[in-house]
């Protein structure tokens, strides 16, 4: 197989900013009126009222590859997905997809609330590109996968949101496309569902099908994708093995402004922050934080503390360096790079944010940056408790269970 299954050549997509949100006849008429009076509409465009969502993007994907697309919000990820799914057209350039394409940009595409689960399986399947016979053939498996059971003939407006999502996902999991375009929205939902989603992607991978997967979730990208591309302001800035590109993404320029600077006396600048989370077993995970400080004007000795918080601002960890006399030496000409390594119980699935404190014994606090997006933890197959909906503790710990005989009353 010499031909790549996906070939993207010089795709660009431009939006005229003036056009977005317009669309009332009155505005259009006034534009026509302006042009009649000799004021061309084009002048507005020349003034840079144009957004390049994608700028000359080219890449190739081989059959069986799982390509991760990463980038910050507004980097052009969704636009790329929409063009490859034929939802919108590129402004210039072309792409060739050699195979059946299914795009999963939401769960339950095409569902209608009034219809029964059965009807919706057929409708959603057809919307996603399956034929009626194909759906009928897989129907029993879809129902089984969705765990909807006897509610299959009930209108889905009576379903719980979890049931609807499961049904939508069951349809998606049974698509027979050669190329799957998957958005990270599929990875939302409870931990159990996330896990099911990731398992599905793994099984598709085993079938040798090709996937394009967009996500912010670094562990998902690193564990699933064979290759990744990094988009920044509509351009591909990195393309290569997933872990390398992910590292680059975490160090990329916009990362600096990701956190909230609370204290900054001007001597220091946090230039990069990188965190990895590795699940080892039921009682252990390994977390590594690496920070890079621009310390040209800094005092020679610094104490750097770290904290990790959940999305809901619950502090999970605090790493305090002063009691241990862990200080960083600054020479002024080189940036300061610090790595913290620790092991603890595995964390509950979710997003975690870091806070970095830099202080000096005499000068006091020099820098504090809050809410730096640090790690995303995904569900692991071997700790079943976090799959149950009632589980909301931060840590999972292995425990023993024993019934005591002859209890004293």
């Amino acid at each position, binding site marked *: 197989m010499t031909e790549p299954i996906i070939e993207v050549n010089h795709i660009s997509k431009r939006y005229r900013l003036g056009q977005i949100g317009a669309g009332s006849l009155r505005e259009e008429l006034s534009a026509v009126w302006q042009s009649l009076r000799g004021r061309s509409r084009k002048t507005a465009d020349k003034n840079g009222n144009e957004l390049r969502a994608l700028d000359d993007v080219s890449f190739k994907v081989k059959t069986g590859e799982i390509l991760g697309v990463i980038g910050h919000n507004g980097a052009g990820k969704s636009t790329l997905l929409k063009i490859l799914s034929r939802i919108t057209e590129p402004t210039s350039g072309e*792409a060739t997809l050699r195979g059946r*394409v299914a795009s999963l940009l939401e769960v339950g595409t095409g569902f209608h609330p009034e219809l029964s689960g059965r009807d919706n399986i057929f409708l959603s399947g057809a919307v996603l590109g399956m034929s009626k016979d194909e759906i009928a053939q897989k129907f029993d498996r879809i129902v089984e996968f969705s765990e909807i059971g006897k509610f299959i003939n009930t209108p889905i407006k009576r379903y719980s949101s979890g049931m609807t999502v499961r049904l939508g996902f069951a349809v998606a999991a049974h698509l027979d496309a050669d190329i799957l375009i998957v958005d990270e929205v599929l990875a939302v939902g409870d931990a159990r569902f996330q896990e099911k989603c990731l398992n599905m992607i793994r099984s598709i991978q085993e079938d040798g099908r090709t996937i394009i997967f967009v996500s912010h979730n670094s562990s998902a990208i690193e564990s699933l994708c064979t290759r990744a591309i990094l988009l920044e302001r509509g351009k591909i800035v990195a393309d290569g093995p997933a872990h390398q590109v992910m590292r680059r993404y975490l160090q990329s320029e916009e990362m600096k402004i990701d956190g909230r600077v609370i204290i900054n006396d001007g001597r220091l600048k946090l230039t990069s922050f990188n965190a990895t989370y590795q699940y080892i077993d039921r009682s252990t995970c390994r977390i590594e934080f690496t920070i890079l400080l621009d310390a040209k004007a800094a005092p020679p000795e610094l104490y750097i503390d770290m904290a990790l918080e959940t999305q809901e601002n619950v502090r999970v960890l605090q790493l305090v360096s002063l009691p241990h006399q862990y200080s960083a030496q600054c020479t002024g000409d080189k940036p300061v790079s610090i790595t913290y390594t620790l092991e603890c119980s595995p964390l509950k699935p979710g997003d975690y944010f870091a806070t970095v404190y830099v202080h000096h014994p005499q000068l006091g606090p020099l820098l504090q940056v809050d809410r730096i997006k640090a790690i995303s933890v995904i569900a692991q197959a071997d700790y079943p408790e976090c799959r149950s909906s009632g589980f909301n503790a931060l840590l999972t710990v292995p425990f023993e269970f024993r019934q005591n005989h002859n209890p004293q009353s």
Partner: protein
Amino acid sequence: MDKSYEIKIQPASRITLLNWKELSGYRDLLLLIIRRDFVARYQQTILGPAWAIVQPLATSLVFTVIFGKVAKIPTDGAPPFLFYLTGMLFWQLFSGSVLAGGNSLQNNASLFNKVYFPRIIPSLGTQISQLIPFTIQLLIYAGFGIWYFTGSETAVFHWQRLLWFPFLLILVITLSLGISLGFSAITAKYRDLQHALGFLVQLGLYATPVIYPVSSIAEQWRWMVWLNPMAAPISTAKWMLLDAGSAPGIPLIFSTVATGIILVIALYFFQRVQRTFIDTV
């Protein structure tokens, strides 16, 4: 690798009005969308599709009282109630389609934003769905027709004229598809015009010889009535079914040609707008 699945994505250099090959691959989806519209509309209703007969019967009854008894507008010798019912039968096919399908891009925007399939499919579905209430209305109509023609000694039913029926049906469906697509293309861009749709359709009823015969219009103004492409099919239907008035010859040819032109122009704009309309939603 199956070559037939190769997809090329590029900015369209020219607009294809209808890609038959692609559409035929989406037959199942079309049928399921028709089913969806049907089931969703009559879910949790008592009478279900039977509601289709209430509106034309009630309107015809009101017209009989107001325009027949009070305003005394002539009906070319046909019984007023059947005269109005005939007009309403075809007018409802048209107005129902346009009201349901004239905003199809906007109505399906959230779906079109997530998945690709030919954007014309929901419009085609709406058009075909309209045949369900039409068929029910036709059955009721046939009942009234039989009752009238068997009860009357002078009225003669011209069976051979029924040959025109399929032609009229196709003409009205094509016209409503054209108007729906054209309106969808316009409202996708100028969203304010979707409010005008209902109003225009309502006005259209009075611009079309549904409640009055063309013969009641002064000779020198009649051409203005015939400019409306719905005028000729409705007048023909009344001649065909009730022997009211005469068969409009040239106006029917004009209406057919106009319908064809409207469909082609509407398809052109629809296909042009649908390619990138999702960017403006």
